[in-house]
């Protein structure tokens, strides 16, 4: 627990000799000035001393403000009490832990401890900025919220289309509607790189199979900048093959799909370093991909 953290809470603050010297010097100086100078010089001195005191006090307070990770266990609730929403959860979890602790059954205790360890690991992930959704499409709710969040101007998405079912179900269509709505009217710019399995974009075909082509064309018609690459062309850099979304410089989402293109897992990470890494992957992927516009030009195709 107790690290050497200065705290003005319940502890008494022991003053050093420096404080006495500074106060004494200040008093002496003020006395001399009061005795020898007019009121304007006195006011000026008073103002200067007061400003220095406020500045120092402010600096001292800001240095003393404790960081979450440096807190002692007993100080944690005091610190959390500033944030009522997190404090509510803290209280609920503490209450549950107390209840668990009071149950004597050894089997229950064993299972409970295992479960709690798992929960602790999950909590640590959440604390590190990582949210995981497994086997559910509910991640699209937070996806929607992120895209609509004020200040987000750029959403870059890498779509890994393993087969023609990709984002063709109802949740997928709803998400595309959100994409179109925000790109058409709002301040959001959407760019997408589509990685296509060879069965979806056969090697000798100028464009992907109709169902996916229609999906790409619709995005292009809305002004979304779409680039495409065959999965086989990324054989040398397999780590680039993934389904990701970069939400400005705020978060990165990674979607894992099964063979039927249903969501197995969606991991959202709110971490600037992860965003930087994802951007770097995006740039590498851009080198391999061709814009849909360029394909239309190359084959003299109408939209």
């Amino acid at each position, binding site marked *: 627990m107790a690290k050497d953290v200065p705290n003005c809470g319940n502890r008494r603050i022991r003053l050093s000799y420096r404080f006495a010297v500074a106060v004494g010097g200040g008093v002496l100086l003020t006395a001399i000035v009061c005795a020898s100078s007019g009121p304007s010089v006195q006011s000026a001195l008073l103002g200067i001393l007061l400003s220095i005191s406020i500045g120092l006090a402010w600096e001292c307070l800001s240095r003393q403000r404790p960081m979450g990770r440096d807190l002692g266990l007993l100080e944690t609730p005091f610190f959390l009490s500033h944030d009522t929403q997190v404090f509510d959860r803290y209280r609920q979890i503490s209450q549950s832990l107390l209840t668990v602790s009071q149950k004597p059954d050894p089997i229950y205790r064993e299972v409970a401890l295992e479960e709690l360890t798992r929960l602790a690991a999950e909590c640590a992930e959440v604390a590190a900025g990582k949210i995981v959704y497994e086997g559910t499409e509910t991640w699209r709710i937070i996806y929607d919220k992120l895209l609509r969040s004020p200040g987000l101007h*750029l959403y870059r998405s890498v779509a890994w289309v393993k087969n023609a079912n990709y984002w063709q179900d109802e949740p997928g269509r709803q998400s595309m509607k959100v994409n179109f709505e925000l790109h058409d009217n709002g301040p959001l*710019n959407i760019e997408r790189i589509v990685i296509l399995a060879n069965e979806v974009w056969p090697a000798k075909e100028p464009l992907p199979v109709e169902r996916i082509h229609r999906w790409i064309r619709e995005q292009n*018609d*809305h*002004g979304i*900048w779409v680039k495409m690459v065959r999965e086989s062309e990324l054989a040398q850099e397999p780590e680039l093959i993934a389904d990701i979304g970069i939400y400005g410089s705020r978060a990165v989402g990674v979607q894992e799909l099964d063979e039927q293109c249903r969501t197995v897992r969606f991991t959202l990470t709110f971490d600037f370093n992860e965003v930087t890494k994802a951007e770097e992957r995006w740039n590498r992927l851009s080198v391999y991909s061709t814009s849909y516009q360029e394909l239309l030009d190359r084959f003299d195709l*109408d939209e």
Partner: protein
Amino acid sequence: MIGTLYLDTARLGQMSPTARDTYLDFVRLTAEEPSSLYFEEFLQHGWAAWPASYRNRFRALESWQGVAGLKHLLARLVGQPRDCRVLLANRSAQLMKLVARLLFRRCRNVLTSDVNWPSYQRFLSAEATRTGNSITTIPVRDMLLRGGITRDELVSFIAEESFKAGCDGLFLPAVSNLGVLFPTHEIVRAIDSRVQLRFVAVDAAQAFCHVPAASYAGSDLLIAGCHKWLGANQTMGMAFCPRKRSRSFIERTLRRMVDARQIDDPLLRFTEQLERGQLDGYSETTNIAPLFSCCGAIDMAPANDLEQEQQLRIRRLNADVVSEAANDSGWMPVRSVTDFQTGILLLKPRHLPRRSSAKSVRAAFQKHGVILSTYDDGLIRLSMPRRPFTDDNVACIRESLVHARPGYRRIMRPLSLPHADPDRRTA
């Protein structure tokens, strides 16, 4: 004004004789039958759809082939096939809103220059701010007007600046309002060879029917007007969508903006409905007169780039003649190298007095039979006609240059010889 030499085409072109005749017959038609069933038939399907009696009464309207027919003719003037999508609007500012939206729905950093038309630039800035994107404006004005830069150097310079700034969109004039020809086609190619441009829009307001269309080809959207070099006089904005790859994007964006009243142009709405044959009957009553003056003016427009090139050569020769006259009359031509020269000539006085207003200089020229554009810094702009100047024309220009020069009167007053040759006197 009879006997006046009109050299202000860069602002508002003189109405061509064919435009005038077509327009007058249209006015006669509206005076006689402003809204009959025949009128609607005529609007939609053209002169040929009328019965013989009507055709005989309004012969000058023969060139009208309906809105679709007019669009085909306009597409031809910019070297595009019949299926090129053309938009017509009362106000080009409305089309500029569309341009700004299209650019910033697809691009994140649009390259422009300091010779872009300022009000168009404001549309771009507003849209860039709204969408959280940026504009990169490169300074080329001084470089072009000072001379000493070749076409290839300009193209490389712009391509390099675009690459450095990470631009993915482009909006440039094909001919600037100061008469500098911008090789937009080559610029697009040079940039595209390094980084693909997502959307290219070109302002051809000063280029349409003035320089060959090939010089500004390669854009996704081209905006122009029929009231300058085409000689229709009646203001009407036009937009062309030459590249197939962007047509659907443009179409959808336009439809959304019109539906949301973000673009509210009665002529645009009306012509779109008329072309589709789906008049809703509830749209605003529209001034359609510009359609007819435009249609008439096309008869006198150069039919292809070859004719356009010949016309431009004559305009440049005219500019040479005026430059020579200007040199003898106290003016200095402000000309870029031949590569960038057009039918617009800029002159500035050798000595500019402190007090000289654009309005007074313009009035002085008009008094001597020449109409042109003037600026507060003493600069004047003359738009060269498509036919060679006659000797009388040159004499008139020379005289007006001498007498309308800023400060001319003040030099003469102390000598009390108001009609003498100022150059000889000052010498």
